[in-house]
């Protein structure tokens, strides 16, 4: 029993590791992508849109297969399961993050920029004092939402042979099928709580931000 719990924890660590690395990459690349997406250049806009739609339309599962098997097939480059997972989740996360950043900046009214400038603020001052704080407040709840979605979706990576928490759970259930036929419910319950422990604090942070925002906006 004690051993099984440790096994689950080590599986959870794989889940967390893949999630955290992917989320970190997504935040950085997505922010850059978002900045690019606000470009007025038609071609740039269309390219970004195409990227975003392709990533959204194709299930993450398919992406995992493409990167894990397909890329190796085509180029001979051999990614491990975890590396493939990080690549796929970064491709997905960056796309979604980019769209969030784009939407947030486009939602800031033009007169916020103009009145900043007409007060004599320089562009860097305008972004630091006026635009970014507003953008960040609107962005954070959505980013946290995206992060929890990414964490939950990492369960798919067992398909390409990465033993994350759900896979470990299955192994434990299978190994004890004859001795403890009802083990499944307890193992899954434990996994449920593990996901909960990771995602719930994130939701709480998101809710706290929204609340604070509503107070200052007086809604």
């Amino acid at each position, binding site marked *: 029993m004690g051993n099984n719990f440790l096994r689950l924890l080590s599986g959870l660590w794989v889940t967390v590791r893949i999630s955290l690395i992917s989320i970190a990459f997504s935040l950085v690349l997505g922010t850059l992508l978002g900045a690019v997406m606000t470009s007025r250049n038609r071609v740039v806009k269309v390219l970004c849109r195409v990227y975003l739609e392709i990533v959204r339309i194709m299930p993450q599962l398919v992406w995992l297969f493409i990167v894990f098997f397909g890329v190796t097939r085509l180029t001979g480059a051999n990614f491990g399961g975890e590396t493939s997972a990080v690549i796929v989740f970064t491709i997905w996360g960056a796309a979604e993050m980019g769209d969030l950043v784009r939407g947030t900046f486009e939602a800031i009214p033009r007169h916020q920029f*103009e*009145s900043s*400038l*007409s*007060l*004599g*603020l320089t562009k860097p001052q305008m972004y630091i004092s006026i635009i970014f704080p507003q953008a960040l*407040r609107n962005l954070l709840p959505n980013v946290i939402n995206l992060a929890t979605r990414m964490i939950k979706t990492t369960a798919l990576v067992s398909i390409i042979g990465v033993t994350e928490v759900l896979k470990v759970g299955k192994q434990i259930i299978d190994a004890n099928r004859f001795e403890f036929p009802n083990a499944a419910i307890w193992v899954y319950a434990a996994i449920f709580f593990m996901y909960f422990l990771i995602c719930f604090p994130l939701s709480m942070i998101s809710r706290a931000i929204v609340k604070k925002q509503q107070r200052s*906006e007086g809604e």
Partner: protein
Amino acid sequence: MTETELKPSAAEIPSEHIIDINGVVKRFGDNAILDGIDLSVSKGEVVVLIGPSGCGKSTLLRCLNGLEPIQGGTITLHGEPVIHGEKSLYKIRQKIGMVFQSYDLFPHLTVLKNITLSPIKVQKRDKAEAERQAMELLARVGLADKAKSYPSELSGGQKQRVAICRSLIMDPEIMLLDEITAALDPEMVHEVLNVVLDLAKSGTTMMIVTHEMAFAQAVADRIVFLDGGSIIEQDTPDEFFRHPKTERAERFLKTFTYTK
């Protein structure tokens, strides 16, 4: 109140120009929004721009602040050129206060911080001193008790009064007011216009775009009537409203009175 009470300034100080606009042309594509505007505003003068929608009056104010590039002519503030996209613009803009039609307060900052942001960040003034002046300005517009409120907790009229304070604290040489009451409920128009009238009396140089004709008549030293991107007529408010010289101005003024 009669117009003579309000405008000693223009008569006394005729010479010192704050703003000089020479042959300004502004085009969007092939469409000339401003078609060779010449206009000067002297210190302490209140110039009110009126004209039908789309005549270019708001665009003119935006050009004066360098928010829009111009395709011809020059704009100078105290002899310094206002050029869209130039670094020098940051310095010049500190001397030009602008209030827009939309509520443009910064929603994430309190009223007090909205006002003190630019003196502290741009003019590098002492925070306590800036806050003291901000409180004085708020008291002047009757909003001292709202210093700690957020913009969303204010009415439209209150927001515009704060926006006026936010510009005034920079001690601008000229205030540009772009239809600042156009988005307000009628009962709030008055409180904002009273503040502007008060500024006019205290000798603030202003260029005002408005659709409130009674207000224009009360506040202006000079009315400038624009149509189709050109200045059609300019005169004292008394003359302009009573005896418009051009047929176009007459037609425009008629649209404000309903006759059967």
